[in-house]
């Protein structure tokens, strides 16, 4: 599995995708930080983190689009699947490498926290809670993106599919308010990423939210493994 993580990470930066993602992510993070904290004179990072959700929606598909679709298109999956390594390790290795790039992007938040702590005195617990929430949200989106990438041989379709899935997830809470059936609205609200993520941005660490994102992540990783397994039987 380590071999896969190492190769994927090297590939992110060899193909420059890693640098592009870092640049986009940090540009917008910096912009939001300036607008909210420096310009708005506050040490509260809540809005920076909640605004970054939308950036995540665009960045994650770039990270996940090639993970499996490119393997299939270049037929390199033949090397992976005929090696003495289980499918779940392959999937998990790819997942970890994408999460690592996201974590690299997030190091910029530490810089923000230091700036805030110098100027206004930072609430480290809240900031750590924010970062944990962001990482969990990102992981869930990555596992969904990974799943979509395993569905198609085209990177473009994988990227657009993941973006659409992300936007639906993002808008789910808004959709619930216009739904006429209240029970359905309730259900959708319960699985809305926004409502679970909101708590983290406010500095509320609840086990339910953590469990929610971890469950979503592993569910889609499991789906990916099952899908790849099923393809071999077709």
């Amino acid at each position, binding site marked *: 599995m380590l071999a896969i993580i190492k190769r994927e990470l090297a590939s992110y930066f060899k193909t420059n995708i890693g640098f592009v993602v870092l640049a986009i992510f940090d540009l917008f993070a910096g912009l939001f930080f300036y607008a909210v904290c420096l310009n708005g004179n506050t040490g509260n990072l809540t809005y920076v983190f909640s605004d970054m959700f939308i950036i995540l929606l665009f960045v994650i598909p770039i990270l996940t689009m090639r993970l499996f679709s490119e393997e299939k298109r270049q*037929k390199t999956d033949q*090397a992976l699947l005929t090696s003495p390594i289980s499918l779940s390790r392959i999937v998990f290795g790819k997942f970890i490498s994408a999460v690592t790039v996201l974590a690299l992007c997030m190091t910029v938040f530490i810089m923000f926290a230091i700036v805030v702590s110098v100027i206004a005195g930072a609430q480290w617990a809240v900031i750590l809670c924010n970062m944990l929430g962001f990482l969990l949200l990102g992981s869930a989106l990555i596992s969904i993106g990974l799943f979509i990438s395993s569905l198609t041989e085209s990177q473009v379709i994988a990227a657009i599919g993941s973006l659409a899935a992300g936007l639906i997830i993002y808008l789910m809470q808004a959709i619930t308010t216009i739904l006429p059936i209240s029970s359905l609205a309730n259900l959708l609200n319960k699985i809305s990423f926004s409502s679970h993520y909101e708590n983290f941005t406010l500095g509320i660490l609840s086990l339910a939210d953590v469990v929610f994102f971890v469950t979503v992540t592993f569910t889609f990783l499991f789906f990916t493994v099952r899908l790849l397994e099923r393809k071999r039987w077709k």
Partner: protein
Amino acid sequence: MIEVKNLTKCYGDKIAVNDLSFTVESGEILGFLGPNGAGKSTTMNIITGYISSTRGTVTVDGSEILENPLEAKKKIGYLPEIPPLYSEMTVQKYLEFMFDLKRVRLPKKEHIDKICEMVRISDVKHRLIKNLSKGYKQRVGFAQALLGDPPVLVLDEPTVGLDPKQIIEMRYLIKSLGRKHTVILSSHVLSEVRAICDRIIVINNGKLVANSKTEAFQKEMSTADMVTVQIEGTQSNVLDALQDVRGVTKIVKKGEKFPNVYEYVIHSEKDTDVRKGIFNAMAKKSFPILLMKTEELSLEEAFIRITNGEGVQK
């Protein structure tokens, strides 16, 4: 070493491989022949565990590929039809990655160096794979299959994309590997299979149509009941003499090849060698024989003959 039993693979309604059974002994080089779409690659993909069979079993050195996939895969080095290369990596980095992925327990650097030396890619080790020629890519793919010295090598058209000199080198290499490894290789080039393989399996439409030792395969397909001769002497006299030879059924005149030298194709009864008789008859009449050869179907013709299930017009 490898035992394939009742292997069947269906894609929806289409049957790609139909009840295929064969075994490969340890140290044997098996040639896999068949027209395009016969199911060669599908069979190889099943043996290596890339796809699953619909029915049937594949056992590699005692490990069943579906029941004990990790053990079985450890014993196989696979070069697919399209070498599985990551174009953005250098050859060295790629082989290191495959080395780690296959969890090879040999000294890494020496082992990779040795294999690069063997398939002659040492001079491109630090180049990006995407910049390599097709021949080099093919050999990098082959190097990947050799990592960890697996007892079984499965090679899907290993000489495609190589130039004539490289093809000869590759054949020599495969043949030398056959001493230590069990090899299954598929090919379109029948002379190649004849040169390398101990045994030949022919499949068509997913079904086994022939399975025999290379020499036996050719013997079976040979047409020893046909002899071509060039004899000096007046045609009518020679014909008269030939007609008297025991076993001759038909003589076809092929015209004058040199001044006063005519060529004939002599057909004989099955399993009768008429060559001695011809020699004696001609010697008695002092007609010098300048050429005598038996006609054999080439492997190509034999191949067409089996897969079509009918004789080939000579």
